[in-house]
């Protein structure tokens, strides 16, 4: 199934695109999606491996877990939440 993943700051910079389309197996989870992203984009994989905080993921305006199952047409958003002045 096709999933359009939107990438927020600063994650998109590791790919150079703000959204990418992934082809995932039916019933794939958010974790599968992250794994596929990492496989396709080694720079993003390196970033996520080194980062001490995980990305925060939203799907259909809900905060979701890595176990959440995806379905055709879903468009999850990944952000990297940090505070500052």
């Amino acid at each position, binding site marked *: 199934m096709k999933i359009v993943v939107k990438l927020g700051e600063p994650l998109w910079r590791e790919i150079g695109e703000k959204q990418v389309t992934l082809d995932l197996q039916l019933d794939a989870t958010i974790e599968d999606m992250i794994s596929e992203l990492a496989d396709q984009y080694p720079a993003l994989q390196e970033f996520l491996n080194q980062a001490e*905080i995980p990305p925060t993921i939203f799907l259909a305006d809900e905060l979701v877990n890595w176990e959440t199952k995806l379905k055709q047409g879903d468009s999850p958003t990944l952000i990297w939440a940090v505070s500052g002045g």
Partner: protein
Amino acid sequence: MTNFVDVDLSSKRYALRETPEKSVRAFLGGRGLNMLFLARLLRGAGGAAKVDPFGPENPLIFGAGLLTGTIAPNAARFNVSAKSPETLGLGDANCGGFFAAAMRRSGFDRIVIRGCAQEPTYLYLEDGQVHFLPANDLWGMGSFETQQALVKIHGPGTISAVIGPAGENLVRMAAVMTGKKNTAGRCGMGAVMGSKNLKAIAAKGRGKLQITDPKKLRQDRIELTEYLKNSKVVQVLGKLGTPFLYQVSNTLGTIRTRNSQDNFFEDTLNAEEVERYVDKMLACTSCVVHCRHRNILGGEGPEYSTIGLLGANLGIAPTDQVIQLNNLVNELGLDSSSTGTIIAWALELYQRGMIDDELSGGPLEWGDFDRIHQLILDIAHRRGFGDILAESSQAKAQFPESAEDYLIAVKDLPQSDPHDVRYIKSFALGIAVASRGADHLRNRPTLDILRLPDDVRYKIFGVETSSDPTSYDGKAGMVAWHDDIYAVADSVGICKFVTHGFNSPHLLGYDHFSSLIEAVTGLRFEEKELREAGGNVIDLERLINLELGRSKLDDTLPKRYFDDPMPARVTKGHKIDRDKFAVMLGEYYQARGWDQEGRLSPERMEELEALIR
């Protein structure tokens, strides 16, 4: 170990004194010791509630952190404290840059200023001497212009903390400025300086700080620099600065927009747009992050808060216009957070017909850059409608009674950051209970949104917390935990960008602080003792607030956060439930050891009294 200089502007006299070790052990330095001096001096001036913030009896305290100016990583911070003319409550502002290190190297760890100069004056600090010098020629100058003039007078290496026209004109949201944009911005400390006819404090820091164990300090520096530089949070902040946070908040739908009537705005304020105007990245004293960015329009910044509050919150989308406003408020010496919040408040009141052209001096429209640019100038110079807005939250006295319903402030302090807190409940509690008013830098639990595993959260916070950021469960303990560690960071003078818990479950925590303090001062603190010192600061601030007449009723939120659901995006429909908030507030009081009215126990009062005496 740490000294203070008692300066009387009225008599032009000063005396240098040592701070007792007992006080350092209890409050460390920076914000903590400032609060000790503030509590004592407000009492000595007839009682906190009676002190006129613009009166000569209001003490104004500049205090460097215990580690500030040393090679400890990111130890650049100092606090400026007084009774606030903006909130009429506890006033305190924290600032980076190079001033505090210069102040210490000129011989002074803390400057306690009382009285009022008869004419415009500045203090010049050099080799342990305080010089009272005329500032007539500096009066009226902008903040960076003043600093350049002081370098011309005293030579290269002169670092100053100054006020601009806003402080001179007693604008209640006036800041103390150092460098092009380092700002002790909160609570109107610049106006207190202005009320004392004090234009600047200039320091020539040629001395060397006494370090108990320089070898250990060097070793800590090397190891901690390596540790910090491996952090992705540090790397990203060093590369992009804070502007990237705008897009993160905007994606969520948590950017305060048009006075929080909306919660998302244009992409023109994303970091990649701001980057077109960035010249280079800069750092403060001993910093390993380098998050500051110089812009090609003649200033520094804007930071995320300013992008949000002078951009989205005013409906201004063009990037260059927001940068121009950023540079303008810095040169005038205005707090960008309060300025953006107060102008947005006025724009909504006009939109609702609650103020008319006669009062406002003409139309007030969202996104009207020219009008807002002029209004900021008028605020700083107290002209026309700007004279009313220069009163900040206190302007409510000149508006219809219901105007306060639209003011995004707590304890009369306009909210500091552009994050709409209706979604993440711990953020809401944090700004409700922060001692100086609506402010994210007292206790913001950013990690709450990361959905860290239960065991990881428990290991960090020591209490059970819900992993759902929209839940109220366990958030009180989380906020209390942040209270303590941020109070310690502020008191040792270390930036929150490298402080454990602010953005990362790693980075510098009590054990690192303890090692650095021992190397610098020889004082040994166990982790528990340092956390207790943080608790001392929080409790003393509570005591000062109670003496100022604050109560449980002030630990609340803007009406809009309770009543109006967020309009769009991920956060759509969220608001703060009054009953659940009340329960969370009670749990917070319990976590702090206060009673259900938010008062300190008699035993705790006795302990604090013993420390204050």
